[in-house]
């Protein structure tokens, strides 16, 4: 199977941009979390694609992508724990209402 690299990279760039947009605009904290997952995936896509090019025997790109998936899981756990906590305190997880700390 032949996949042209630039196009793949373009997809990853698209994912990155969409993720960035979501992170900047979603009102819901979980929405922001999901957008960030998109960014992580775009990076992962890069890693795997480059791994395919370089064909390293150790499979660095793929290993790295696995690490990313692992840390993403950890991140999601932490994020949701924090979101749940704040929801318990404030009954909201809307990012533009969480603004007691400022200045």
């Amino acid at each position, binding site marked *: *199977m*032949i*996949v*042209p*690299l*630039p*196009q*793949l*990279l373009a*997809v990853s*760039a698209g*994912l*990155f*941009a*969409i*993720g*960035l*947009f*979501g992170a*900047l*605009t979603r*009102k819901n904290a*979980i*929405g922001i*979390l*999901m*957008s960030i*997952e*998109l960014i992580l*995936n775009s990076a*992962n*896509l890069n890693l*795997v*694609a480059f*791994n*395919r*090019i*370089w*064909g*390293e025997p*150790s*499979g660095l790109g*793929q*290993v790295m992508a*696995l*690490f990313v998936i692992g*840390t993403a*899981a950890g991140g*999601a*756990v*932490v994020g*949701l*724990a924090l*979101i*749940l906590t704040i*929801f318990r305190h404030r009954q909201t*997880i*809307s*990012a*533009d209402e969480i603004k007691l700390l400022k200045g």
Partner: protein
Amino acid sequence: MFAMSPGNPSIGPLDLAARAAFYGVACATLIGAAITVTARNLFRAALGLALALFGVAVLYLFLEAEFLAVSQLLIYVGAILTLIIFGVMLTAQIASPTQPRFNRQAGISLALALAVGLGLGWIFLTSGWPSPSPKEPPPAPVPLSALGRSLISIYLLPFELLSILLLGTLVGAIVIARKEKDPE
């Protein structure tokens, strides 16, 4: 022939079909991503994310990274996304039709994201990407066994650290998220 050399002569019909499939999957992925960030309903956004993640997994398949594709499905779609959906349901904010979808900085964010996306795309498409050795045949995909070996040899340290990370986050998340019963 993998890689991007522009004037590659040997493009067979199979390649063409594969290419069409690739574009389809790529589009699906991006559409899923778009749904993720635009859907008013948070549950639908989660489904969009699932679509995007799934699309990425298929792209991994295109790249002959089968283990990763499986991991993506198992961990990402299976675990992380489930967790997120749980979160959505727990916080009971699935949809709030009265509220605008985006916050007030949507316009400028859109411009910024467009700039980033187009800029990155332009750079990727115009950069001369290096390849280890253009004349040799493309390297074989990394076998699963090699992956496993390198995980417990070369990359043992980050791997172990990752386990510490996961353990720590789980414990910490439980401590934080758990409702406090006894003031320990």
